[in-house]
């Protein structure tokens, strides 16, 4: 549905030019929920705005469906108003001088191929129903709460019945509890409507919860693309791994048997990196919730004696700082598991399939 080939966008605002988007290629299928994950300044919003036509890339091509909307090489640039996308802005951009109804109806009444009034009324009614704001048609926009404005922005984007829905950090201005609720609604809506979604966020939890496919972006480049779980479990490198969540990092060396010798001991690992030749340096990453703790040894592989250094109660989970052969390891367990007291001697186990090995 969205095809991007070799896209680059350079900003020249005094000083050195910034490659906001640096030769990016992506392919997003129909009805796919695609999440672009990156820190602020990674170029993710610029990429989204390029798809919308709000930025004009220096090189590369963008296709929406079977239509080329942007090709720097062929001199094609379809203006945003003719791309037929829907977009939800980070600031919502709900027009403050209009009512809820007018906000949603305005594009329908003012775009090419405008609809008859009766049909517009029906579309607006339907869109408001989808976002559960029925009955608020006549409310002036400034009299809406943040969450309601967010829903109006979504309804406006959906009312044009776009094939592609662009969302630029739509939840970042909502408070934490509302964020989760709206997040789940967005996911359900997109499945129900069968729309292709291009969603930009810096929140990895949000990305995991929403994405069919997630792409991690940094410094204008896409580092990894794939199903959310695959990217989480098998990050291609250390920076992607770190970005998706905290990670214990153990430096080591690959031995002749293909095990990695680290500070905590010799670890049997799953896939070794391509360059993982014997004698090569490697980094083993393991997420705190993939570290298993028990008082008695289980006798399985990758198990080591450890000492509990500290314990922090976080509500639904408990975080421990452990010392394994003098190496600090953090570990998270759910509360239902037995609690270990600081100073206790325990056993810690790193399951082979949870270990991520990167070349150093």
């Amino acid at each position: 549905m969205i095809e991007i080939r070799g896209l680059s966008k350079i900003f020249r605002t005094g000083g050195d030019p910034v490659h906001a988007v640096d030769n990016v290629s992506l392919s997003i299928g129909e009805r796919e929920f695609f999440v672009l994950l990156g820190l602020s300044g990674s170029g993710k919003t610029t990429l989204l705005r390029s798809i919308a036509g709000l930025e004009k890339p220096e090189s590369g091509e963008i296709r929406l469906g079977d239509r080329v909307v942007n090709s720097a090489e062929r001199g094609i640039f379809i203006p945003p108003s003719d791309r037929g996308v829907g977009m939800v802005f980070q600031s919502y951009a709900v027009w403050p001088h209009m009512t809820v109804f007018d906000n949603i109806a305005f594009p329908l009444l003012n775009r090419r191929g405008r609809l008859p009034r009766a049909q517009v009324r029906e579309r607006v009614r339907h869109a408001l129903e989808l976002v559960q704001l029925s009955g608020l048609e006549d409310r002036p926009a400034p009299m809406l709460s943040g969450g309601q404005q967010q829903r109006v922005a979504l309804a406006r984007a959906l009312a044009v019945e776009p094939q592609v829905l662009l969302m630029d950090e739509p939840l970042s201005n909502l408070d934490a509890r509302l964020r989760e609720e709206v997040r789940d609604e967005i996911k359900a809506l997109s499945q129900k409507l069968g729309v292709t979604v291009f969603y930009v966020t810096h929140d990895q939890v949000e990305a995991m919860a929403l994405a069919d496919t997630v792409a991690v972006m940094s410094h204008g480049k896409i580092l990894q693309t794939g199903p959310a779980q695959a990217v989480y479990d098998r990050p291609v490198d250390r920076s992607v791994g770190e970005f998706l969540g905290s990670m214990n990092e153990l430096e080591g060396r690959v031995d002749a048997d293909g095990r990695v010798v680290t500070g905590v001991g010799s670890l049997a690992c799953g896939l070794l990196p391509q360059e993982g030749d014997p004698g090569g340096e490697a980094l083993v990453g393991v997420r705190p919730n993939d570290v298993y703790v028990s008082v008695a040894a289980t006798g399985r592989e990758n198990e080591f004696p450890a000492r509990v250094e500290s314990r922090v109660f976080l509500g639904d989970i408990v975080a421990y700082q452990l010392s394994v052969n003098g190496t600090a390891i953090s570990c998270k367990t759910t509360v239902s598991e037995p609690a270990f007291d600081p100073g206790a001697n325990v056993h810690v186990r790193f399951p082979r399939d949870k270990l991520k090995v990167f070349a150093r």
Partner: protein
Amino acid sequence: MTAGNTTLQDLDTAPRLLPRLGRVDWSQTLIVGVAVAAAATIVILLGLIVWMSLRTGVPAQPSPYTLENYHTLLSDPYNYEVLGTTLAFALVTIAVAVPSGAVFAWLLERTDLPGKTAAATLLSMGILIPTFLKAMGWVFLLHPRIGALNLFLVRVVGLESSPFNIATVVGMGFVQGITLAPVAYVMVAAALRRMNPALVEAAAVHGVGIVRSLLRVELPLVWPAILSVMIWLFTIAIAAFDVPAVIGMTNNIFTFSTALYFMVNPAEGLPQYGLSGAFGTIMIGLSLFLMIPYFAALRHSHRYQIISGKGYQTRPIELGRWRLLGWGALLLYVLLAVVLPLVSMLWASLLPYMQAPSWRALASLSLERYTSVFVDDALITSGLNTLFLMFAVPTAILFFSAAISWVVTRSRLRGRMVLDAIAFLPHPVPNLLFALAIAYLALVVSHVVPLYGSIHLLVLAYTLVWIGFGTRTLNSNMLQVHRELEEAAQVGGASALRIVRKIIVPLIRPGLVYVWIWTSLLAYRELTMAVLLSSPENQVISTFIWGEWTGGGLGDAATAGILMVVIMSPLVAGFWTVARRQLDVAES
């Protein structure tokens, strides 16, 4: 408890950290005193206008309190005519200034117009030429009897009568509007910059074209700001003196300011202070009343500044071939605001009498006026007086406005917002009235203090009237200085005055420099108040030129005007460049 930890008992015996608390800080009292003195003077002067309106006869003579002046004023149909002319003049001014200012703001803020820095400089160039000189330039060009273009069309082309007449209400409004367009530009541009660009992008993304989006989204959103600009310029126009005086009086068209001027400086008979007081009181009421819709519109425009996203720059609208039209409009503006008035004034200054442009006229061009005007002692004195004002006034303004701003933003004094409002008062109230009140006051006390006709009266008038420029800039500057920076010094035992000198002043230096330069430029341009307070001893360049003009020496007035622009331009341009840079620093 390990050694080295402080216990509560230790704290009790430690030296007190807050020595100043509980003791009276005299320096703070001093700052408050300066601020209150300035504000009180403003209020007293306004009160004086009302007091004047209730008395008859000449100043310093006993008079019963009476409403006779109001009766005389309101029963004379001529005064209603003046009021009608003033309103019509103000409306034409707005009709010229606001649309052109808004178009320039849109071009510079929203499009990819090339050479934006140059365009912004061109728009601000008008500051180089005082308004009364521009008005004179237009008289030399389009007056039905002496205007060069009219003379050309009648004598050379052969038209039966002069086709153009600048000395009409529309003509005056046109010239006033041209001079105020940059003000409208700055205010609308600021509103466009405050607006969340995503609001326009949201229209584009969902299929709305540029023109519809401009008319249905962007314009309605900046409308409250535009409305506030309109009211603001309206108050400026009804109080304007330069243009009605220079252009209108050649054709006996009077607006409020020029009519008031003639009440105080009548061609025959005694000055009618009582009548002018009544007229002034009514105008004070009108201009204060206008502040109600002004602030309402301003509040409304700020309400539209909703949460904005991250600070991205929106992609400018591509003008394509329309850019030529954009630059065409800009150059046309510069032609009308700067080039034409200057050229026609230069033409007048080089001729023995006004002639149509022709070979014969070219042959009679000479620099004779320039050589004769230069040896004129009065011009030299006026120049020195102007320079004195350009340094004394801004310095006094900084002194008083910094004190007021400090009290308003820093102290917890009750009634501090009243001080702020009073400092703002001279903005809407016609400045001429402050000069009138000061002149009256000087006459009343003339037996005791012989101030009448002194240059210090000009310093007093300019300073009081423009304090508001200072406080508006310094208020926002001081608010940006975090309170804790000051409190840290306070805890360290510094006095209020020392804190202002050592902490606040260095931190807001760019704002101070900007205010100083800006008010210095105002002092250079000012004619209105100078004319009302003028005497042979306190002539400045503007009143010197005004004297030549009203005395019938049009060519000499043009010559002095050209000299004023040529000699002062490097200074003014240098000031302006520094001020703009300081403003950039202050905003970043």
